[in-house]
């Protein structure tokens, strides 16, 4: 592990959503008895990871694995049920709205849907000016205008379009504006939640290039949320794989792509269609993805894992550090079970 203090680290974060509605909805008759039951979506379960300064950490997983929730917990949009979020060693998950403000300047977020992430009733100028003015009340409008022009230039949007509304832009352009908003406060750390999945391939490449370029120029640290593994391979230094709100594997990109350890990670990577390759036999998973409302016991993956045994059903595997510096949570790997 890096001896330096990580920029962002999260420890044992748990986030559950109560969706059981009002008090009365929680009652039900079961076996002739009145019971009170809460329905919770267990979105994130005991996840710990850290992001080093200057690196790009990707969080991958299939839909419903809790990756977006994790991003929002880090950004303070959802308070975690338990666990800690640390920024430069300082705990931020329990701060009040005002205490959070200094961190808002350092941490920003880029969203998935370029159509929904911009307020349709605000011009580019209003969108970009709002955070600037809010965090720097003393700033003059000339200073603000300069700053906005600079950032727009950087993300590749012509500053003459400053008075336009979002609907006048294409998806790629919007995503650039959205990135500009993220950058306008000169943050150190950016959470990018699927920033390219809504875009066409040719546009996707443009945005990925922009993000990589910006990271270099501005010395940014990314937490990159995506389900697209080819993007992950391209952009990230390290990768964390989530399954049903649980961290399965965390390793450097290279290690993970060439030597995935966790059975889920293996299946996932084998399923990526690659251009020009005839279908290689991918690893088939059995069963259905359980819902995060009714989590399986033990290892959450056991129901779909061909290597699972009785221990996997019973016992939650711990995250174990491997020789190559990666981490994996699997009894099978721990026990060195033969895996084809």
């Amino acid at each position: 592990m890096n001896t330096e203090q990580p920029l962002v680290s999260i420890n044992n974060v748990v986030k559950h959503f109560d969706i059981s509605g009002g008090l009365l909805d929680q009652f039900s008759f079961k076996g002739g008895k009145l019971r009170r039951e809460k329905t919770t979506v267990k979105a994130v379960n005991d996840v710990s990871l850290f992001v080093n300064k200057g690196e790009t950490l990707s969080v991958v997983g299939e839909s419903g694995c809790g990756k977006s929730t994790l991003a929002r917990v880090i950004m303070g949009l959802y308070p975690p049920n338990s666990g800690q979020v640390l920024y430069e060693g300082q705990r931020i998950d329990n701060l009040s709205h005002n205490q959070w403000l200094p961190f808002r300047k350092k941490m920003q977020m880029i969203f998935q849907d370029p159509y929904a992430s911009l307020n349709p009733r605000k011009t580019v100028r209003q969108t970009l000016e709002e955070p600037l003015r809010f965090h720097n009340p003393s700033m003059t409008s000339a200073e603000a205008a300069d700053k906005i022009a600079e950032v727009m230039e950087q993300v590749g949007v012509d500053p003459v379009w400053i008075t336009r509304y979002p609907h006048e832009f294409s998806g790629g352009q919007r995503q650039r504006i959205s990135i500009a908003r993220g950058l306008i406060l000169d943050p150190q750390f950016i959470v990018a939640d699927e920033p390219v999945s809504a875009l066409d391939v040719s546009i996707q490449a443009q945005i990925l290039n922009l993000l990589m370029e910006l990271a270099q120029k501005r010395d940014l640290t990314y937490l990159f949320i995506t389900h697209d593994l080819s993007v992950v391979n391209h952009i990230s230094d390290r990768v964390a794989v989530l399954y049903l709100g649980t961290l399965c594997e965390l390793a450097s990109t290279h290690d993970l792509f060439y030597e995935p350890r966790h059975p889920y990670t293996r299946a996932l990577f084998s399923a990526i269609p690659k251009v020009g390759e005839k279908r290689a036999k991918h690893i088939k998973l059995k069963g259905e993805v359980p819902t995060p409302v009714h989590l399986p016991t033990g290892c959450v993956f056991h129901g779909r894992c061909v290597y699972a045994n009785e221990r996997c059903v019973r016992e939650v595997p711990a995250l174990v550090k491997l020789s190559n510096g990666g981490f994996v949570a699997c009894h099978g790997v721990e026990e060195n079970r033969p895996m084809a």
Partner: protein
Amino acid sequence: MTHLLEVRDLEVKFALRSGDITAIDGVSFTLNQGERLGIVGESGAGKSVTGFSIINLISKPGFISKGSIHFEGKCISDYTGSQMRKIRGNRIAMIFQDPMMTLNPVFTIGFQMIETLQAHRNISKADARAIALEKLRKVQIPSPEERLDQYPHELSGGMRQRIIIAISLLADPAIIIADEPTTALDVTIQAEIMDLLQELCETENMALILITHDLGVVSQVTEKIAVMYAGKIIEFGPTDKVVHTPVHPYTIGLIGSIPGATVPGEELRQIPGMMPTLSNIPEGCAFNPRCELCEPICTQKTPELEEKQNGILAACHMK
């Protein structure tokens, strides 16, 4: 030899208040029995419209303005509504993009399967049910009997897409048109569904038209690829050749944009700009504003689709 499906010079227009706009402009291709064709393109390229025009189901205000479609030797583009209905779901089946939206939420799976069969075959409910069960088994759905009485919302996305495939198989069609069948699904599920489709095509000797934006998916499943850009096919050829030695600058750019194909961390090859909207397609080659090789002729004359090298057809003046 007559082809199973032959699309010739197809043109589809949309009647808008401001005038007609052309969504598909002179698309031609053929498909043989058991053959798997991929139609690739970014959004707005006209690939879905091409798929829907084959069974004459373009949503309003679109209409086929020119060209012909021959299926099993008959010109089905002239068919009346009721004649066409005998083809749809029977000889040519379709799979839609989002399995969550494709099944009617208020009817059971069984209901929706049986009615499809009864629309095309004069059989009893019990027989139809038996066939439905058989097809469900064929798409490897666990406990198919139970599924018949379930409603769509009780099933996961992957399961629903399997059911839709089963519905497509009900009448043993000659062609399945799959419009982005896995876009809405997770990678692991996607791989399973694609496997299934490929397998079925092989065992049942069905032809497949796979419409997708994902070159990776297409290259694994299909034998031929048609790349579409702004309503036209700009490159057409055997899959291997198109993905490994593409001719058209757009195809080259497209393949270059895919992150997996470049060394990690390197800048991706990117195509500047974006696809034109249908209402203002540039003169000449529609790709010319984004093309590195653009010459004056490209802005004046529309290039024809012609054979370039080792069996690849491409529409480009430069190559």
